[in-house]
Every structure is written in C-alpha cells, then in structure tokens.
C-alpha cells in the first residue's frame, strides 16, 4: 500500500506572531520562507496573529502592515505557497482580501468560530470567483461536538472551501477527541480535512499523528512550536513522527531543522514552555492567543491567572475577545477590594 501523502502547513509567521506581539519583520519573514521553501514545506501562512485586517488595539498592532509582510514572503517564495489567514469580522473583502489578491496571494484560509461557519460565505465565494483557493478552519473546535463540527464543515464545503481544518486553538484536545472529531469530518466530507494543534497538554504532536491516521490530509506545525503560551505543534517533531509512522511529506527533515535553528536564533524570543498558566489555560479550554493578555492583566490588576481563566471559561470566550480579559480582571480586582 503506498504511504499516505500529507500536506504540511507552517503558520509560524502568522499564529506564532502572537508570542512576540505581532512584531515579525519583513527580513525574518523573507529568510524563514526561503528556508522552509527549500525544506519542502507546502504552505506558509503569513501576517498578523489573527490574520488580515486584525492589527488592532483589541488584539495588538502589527509592527509591519499585512501588505509589507506579504510582499516579503511572496518575493522570497519559489515553490512554497503563501497563504493569508482571514477571520470575517476582522477582515473585509474590500479593505483586506481584494488588495491581498492584487498583491499575488492565491491561497486564503478562512477562520470562523466553530459554530459560525456562515460568516465566511461571502468571503469564500469572492475568493473563489477571483480564482484563488479558499481553505477554511473552525476555531476553538474543542467547544462543540463532532456532529456540530460536521454540520458547520458541510456548510463550508457547500460555499466552495477546498479544505476544513479543525483548530485546537486552546490546546485542549484529548487524543480520543481528536480521533472522534477528525474521523467524523473525514467520513462526512468530500474535501480535505486538516488539524492545527496547540501544546498545552503536551499532546500536539500525538494529536497531529492521530489526525493523519484518521485521514486528515493537512497538518499544521510551527518552528520549535513558536506560538503564544504553551505554543503550537512543533513542526520538526511532528514531521519526524509522521515519517516514523510511514506517512510521506515533501519535507526534508534536516533542512527543516535548519529553518527552525534560524527561527530560534532570530525571531523566537523565548522558546514555548508549558508553564503553570499554559496548563490551566489548556485545561479550561482558553484560547492560546489570550496568553500574553491574561498574564499582563493578571500582573496589572493583581488577580490570579486561574481566576481569570475560570471566568473566561464560564463566559465561554471565543477567539478575538481580548477586551473581556481586561473587563474580567478589573471587576475581579474590585471584588477583591470590596471583600
């Protein structure tokens, strides 16, 4: 039996950017794209941590514009595809997507909260009409059942998506959950299924391999796990583990390690580490991208990380709700002061 081919998507230059406050430079973007291109990675996602148009007071301002980072990535790319992440509600067709297409971006990956797939309908249809590829993803997918995810994924398939990636945005997936959710999508869809992990419970590589075994065709990993808090799935160990399990990829592991070494020596400020707050956040299912904001609100208002996480979990916060972190911290501080 020929071994299953897996597409490797590297969102270091997008999701990873949450860890350094969206401060990637065009120089780092260009060099890292060259290195992973040479290593055989299929797709690089580039931009602000929450994608096109998301540079904001709410999530954090980018040091360099979407257009500037795209230019650097597109100029450096030979074979690798450069992809832009898009969350409808942050980005619009006119302000963000059309200019990116104009620049030469031909692959987009839409992200909606796992129950809100229809928010991306118009954007997917626009991108398809322009002849570009519309990959999609369901964010914070630990929050709902496999059946709900399939219902939402079927809508995306219907709109013209080329794939649906389940994002474990909080690093909260257990291994049986990965099996259940990925298998349900693979069986129910005609398009490719993908998995995007975070490492809060040390399961990101295991979950990525399980996803591939259940039929996922696309898996995401970042250089050394570069990402907020506990980090993403480390791409190097993920590719090594996939090869051990007889999956084929286009990636040359040794060259990939060199790309990781470059990232570690330049833009990765601190290697991701599963600290106390990372475990709490994974256990409560809090969006990984919140990490820096939770730590800063906790320090500023003298409230514990656990209390903030508990309250975020009670309120079922979704990606992009950074303002709620501060509101919760301010109100918890008031409660403490009154007691």
């Amino acid at each position, binding site marked *: 039996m020929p071994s299953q081919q897996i597409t490797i998507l590297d969102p270091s230059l997008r999701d990873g950017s949450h860890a350094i406050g969206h401060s990637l430079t065009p120089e780092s973007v260009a060099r890292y794209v060259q290195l992973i291109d040479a290593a055989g990675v299929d797709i690089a996602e580039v931009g602000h941590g929450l994608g096109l148009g998301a540079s*904001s*007071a*709410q999530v954090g301002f980018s040091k360099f514009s979407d257009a500037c980072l795209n230019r650097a990535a597109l100029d450096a790319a030979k074979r690798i595809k450069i992809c832009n992440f898009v969350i*409808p*509600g*942050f980005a*619009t*067709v*006119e*302000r963000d997507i059309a200019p990116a297409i104009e620049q030469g971006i031909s692959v987009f990956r839409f992200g909606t*909260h796992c*129950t*809100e797939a*229809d*928010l991306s*309908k*118009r*954007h997917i249809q626009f991108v398809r009409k322009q002849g570009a590829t519309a990959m999609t993803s369901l964010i914070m997918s630990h929050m709902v059942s496999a059946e709900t995810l399939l219902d939402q994924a079927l809508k995306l398939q219907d709109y013209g998506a080329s794939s649906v990636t389940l994002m474990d945005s909080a690093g909260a997936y257990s291994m049986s959950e990965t099996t259940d959710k990925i298998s349900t999508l693979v069986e129910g869809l005609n398009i490719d299924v993908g998995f995007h992990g975070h490492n809060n419970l040390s399961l990101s590589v295991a979950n990525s391999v399980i996803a591939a075994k259940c039929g996922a065709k696309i898996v995401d990993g970042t250089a050394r796990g570069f990402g907020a808090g506990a980090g993403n799935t480390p791409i190097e160990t993920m590719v090594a583990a996939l090869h051990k399990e007889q999956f084929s990829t286009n990636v040359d592991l040794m060259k990939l390690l060199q790309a990781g070494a470059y990232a570690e020596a330049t833009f990765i400020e601190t290697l991701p580490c599963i600290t106390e707050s990372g475990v709490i956040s994974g256990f409560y299912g809090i969006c990984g991208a919140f990490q820096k904001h939770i730590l800063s609100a906790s320090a500023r208002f003298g409230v514990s990380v656990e209390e903030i996480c508990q309250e975020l979990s009670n*309120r*079922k*916060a*979704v990606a*992009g*709700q950074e*303002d*709620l972190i*501060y*509101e919760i911290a*301010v*109100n918890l501080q008031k409660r403490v002061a009154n007691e």
Partner: protein
Amino acid sequence: MHCKLFAGRRKDSPGLAIASKHGITVSTDGINGVLKILNTLDVVFDCTGADAHRSHWESLKKSHVKVVDLTPSNIGIPIIPSVNLQDVHCAQNLSLVTCGGQGAIPIAYALKQAIPDLDYFEVVNTIASKSAGPATRDNLDDYITTTESVLKRLTGVKDAKAILILNPAEPCINMKSTVFASSRNAFSEHDKEKITRSVNELAASVSQYVPGYRITMQPVYDGKNLMVSIEVLGIGDYLPRYAGNLDIITAAAIAVAQSTNQVVKRAANA
C-alpha cells in the same frame, strides 16, 4: 405614532404572526405591500438587509415619506440619537448605522468631546450568535465598513476600526461594546476627570431611550491609550433581553421617527 402596516416576505414569519396578534395589518408582499399604501404613510422603517435596502430606496426616494434604515447600507444621513438627532431634518433617508455603532459611537463621541487630541478609535462589538440573523451574517462586511465610516464622520478622526465578534455561549451573552481610543499625549489627572464625566453623562443620555444601556468597565488607561466597555440589555418585550444589539437600534429608530413625526405634524399644522 401609529403602525399602519407590517410587511414581510414569508407567510410563516413569526414576526408577522406577532404583528397580526397586536391587530396590525400585515402584508407578505414585502416592499410592494408598502408601496401600495405609500400615500397614507409618514415614515417607512426598513429592517431587511443592506442590498435589499439599496433597491427599496430606489422605489421610495421620489415619495414624501421619511425612510428610517435599520440596515448597514450607509445610504442616508447617519443618526445616533444621543449625538446628532437634530440631523433628522437634513435628509429623507436616515441611516441607523449599525447596532454596534449605536452602542459605541456615543462613547467615542463623548471621549472626543472631552479630549480633542484623540486621533484613533476602535470599537469591538460582541453579540450572541442567536441574535445575529441571516441578514446580519450576510452583511458582516457592510457592518464593518459602515461602522468605521460613521465613527470617523461623527468624531472627526481620520483612523478608525470596527470589529464584530459572535459568541454562541448558552445562556446567551448580552450585547457588549468596547471602545479603544488613542491620544497624541498622555492623559493627565484632569483629562481623566473630564473623560469620566463626559462618558457617564452621555451614557446616561443614551439610557433615556435604551434603559438597559450601562458602562461595565469605566475607562482604563495604558499610557496614551484607553478602553471603556458598555453593555446593552434589551427591554425583553418581543426580543430576548440579551439581544441588546437588536433593541438599541430599534429604540434608536423609534427616537428618530418620533422626532421626524413632530416635524410632519408641525408641517401639517402650519
């Protein structure tokens, strides 16, 4: 004000059933139902979608009626009752902007009144998924474009951003807006006092026509930046209480129509 007609498209629409129960004449003929009795009307409220409103406006603009637009089409003069209600006299088509705009723009306006140096506003609106119907979802980009454009227009800043987030939590979350602002200079204690006074005064004036409007986080400062959050709880008559986003724009529409109605009456008496 007297409601003469409630028009929809779907025979099984729950809204039409409620209107019928209240003894209001209903039509399932959409805009055509309205056009048939146009000469008996003073005000038409359009609660469809941005594209539909653009075509309805073509049929309404040559008539005498005031058009109150609850879609984010951004065709008419934007009205935020607590900010520029006097502008209802300036145009036939009155745009209610967006639900997020109705919630957040009063706060941005109050901030700018207190500190003219502010040069950036950002409004982040979070609503319950269940309060966002098919038109809201389809009009997501119109929501952002219109909110940003009116935010700039009514505060005079050149740079503004709008973000909309849907949260499916059960029980449903209340509508919430956070306004971020940046200044060229750091805020002095005197500035902070002025801001607190201005924001709370304007919030009180909004709560006169939207009783569930309240500040949930007083201004929090970080260097040259600040943030304020508000929440809108609906009155819970027809719409659920959490759907403050729907309530605030409906309440604004009534406030706008009442003031145009006075104009109509005055004109009739003269």
